[in-house]
């Protein structure tokens, strides 16, 4: 059945989390424009996902959006999904904390590689969101606005928004969307 839409409106997320939700949708969406999977994690993020696309409950995929490690382990152990998509933070994310608006969702880091191996999963894709380029464009916007160049500041802001998804998954990024597949039965 389709996920129940509550009366809560979709939450307004910071741009990097919104972009990360977009990446999650792109990775998890079936051809019909729906997601079939089990969604867990922080309420703001799961609500945002369920507001973007119809979600059908299924054990074939787990989507963990900032989920505590224990909740993720438990979901994987109980459903043994074919695919897992996670949204996690990074050390880079923690270093940006002083610059974040208060109250922003804190994302746990990914489980250790050895633990994924032990559970029988291998990483097949990784996408970074809010990497160095986006941070530099954002700084450029602030500086240029202070210097009285709104024309260039606006361009920097657009460049920041268009480069939120990092150019290469190996580059530092605040948020990471990771895709795992089951490799053992």
């Amino acid at each position, binding site marked *: 059945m389709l996920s129940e*839409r509550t*009366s809560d*409106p*979709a*939450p*307004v997320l910071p*741009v990097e989390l919104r972009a990360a*939700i*977009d990446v999650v*949708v*792109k990775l998890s969406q079936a051809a019909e*424009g729906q997601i079939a999977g089990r969604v867990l994690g922080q309420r703001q993020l799961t609500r*945002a996902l369920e*507001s*973007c*696309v*119809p979600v059908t409950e299924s054990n074939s995929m787990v989507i963990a959006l900032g989920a505590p490690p224990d909740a993720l382990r438990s979901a994987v152990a109980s459903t043994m999904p074919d695919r897992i998509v996670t949204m996690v933070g990074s050390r880079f994310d923690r270093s940006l904390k002083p610059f974040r608006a208060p109250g922003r969702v804190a994302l746990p880091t990914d489980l250790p590689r050895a633990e994924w191996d032990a559970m029988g999963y291998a990483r097949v894709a990784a996408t970074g969101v809010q990497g160095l380029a986006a941070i530099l464009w954002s700084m450029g916007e602030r500086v240029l606005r202070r210097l009285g160049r*709104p*024309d260039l500041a*606006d*361009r920097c*802001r*657009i*460049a920041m*928004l*268009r*480069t939120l998804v990092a150019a290469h998954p190996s580059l530092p990024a605040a948020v990471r969307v990771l895709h795992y597949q089951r490799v053992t039965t």
Partner: protein
Amino acid sequence: MTAIDPAAVASAVLGLDRWFETMRGAWPRLGYGGPVVHWWNHCLTYRGTGLDWRYEGITAGYLTLWRRTGDRRWLDKAVRAGNDLVVGQRADGHFINSRFELNPGVGGTPHEAACDVALLLLAKELRGLGLAERPYLEAARRNLEAFWLSRLWHAPSSTLWDAPGVPSFVPNKAATFVEAILLLRELTGDDSLVERYAIPTAERILAMQVRRPGDKLDGAIAQNRFGDRVVTSFFPLYIARCVPALVELAALTGETRFRDGALAAIAFIARVREPDGGLPQVLYPGGRSNRHPRWISGAGDVVRALAVARDLGADVDPAPTVAWLLRGVRPDGRIATAEGFGRIVPWITRRDRASDEIGVVGWCDKAFRALAPLAKPELLNHASAVTAGNTRPLGVAEVVR
């Protein structure tokens, strides 16, 4: 005025109507959906129904077609649009997914006021026909009272804030609010709305207008302000969206300052319009600008403003911008969104050039609204409205009561 090819206009209007039908969906509610591309950001992941400013042009356009042809199918489509809004209104007065490029979410500005304009235009038409207008009037009133007047209106300064608790003001959004207020006043007979809300808001709009004869920016209206800090960006499209409200208010109150402000804004738009009828995206002080992207379908609101000003006697010709709109017509009926998304920031946004061609209901509605009054009725009567499956237009008898 330069000649406009009536056959091309009628073809564009019928094409848009056909295309709008293909953009209807049922998730999360019945209504017009599809992707959104915009200056700051796009909304490509959420493609469900959006109850935002797309309803303004769709409803106004269909009502215009109905009045010009007497063909009931057009009225039915306007009613169907109104029903989308009534059914999609939440208990707190908000419309679901009203944030356009920021969808999903509620509380979009000026989007919810634009939905109110749509509802009130429909209510006005139905009242004139002796049909039930109450659900539409009440839905608009509920939204205006619960959101705009209760949460965005800052009574001590008589200012419409752009977000609850944030001392900010955005002229073009406030102008949409004024249009809604003036329609509400017309339908309810409550003249105090003009004095309490419309006039102070229009005064705030004029306060942000550049009045420096000889300056290229003379007549332009700044994009917004936070507190007393004015953001000196001047977007011709948004300035055009201020014009109808100022003109309507001038006609109602007889205060020429609003008319003069509207005419100065139009003179600015005419001055910066390019030879092909398109307009630059944004101008800044000191002669700086960013031409890209140049709106195509959204330029319908510029045509509407030019037409309003011409009716006041301004020496402006909408035809070049009508031609600009018509050059954007694509075989499936949509009008391309823009030209130049890939050139906003050289190299960085080059991959964004594909956004130019994306059909966006909330931009095409502006072309539809602008072109509907220009289409010859005899060329519209053979319209083949697509009415398949659950997109069947509701008859007036099925109006939510």
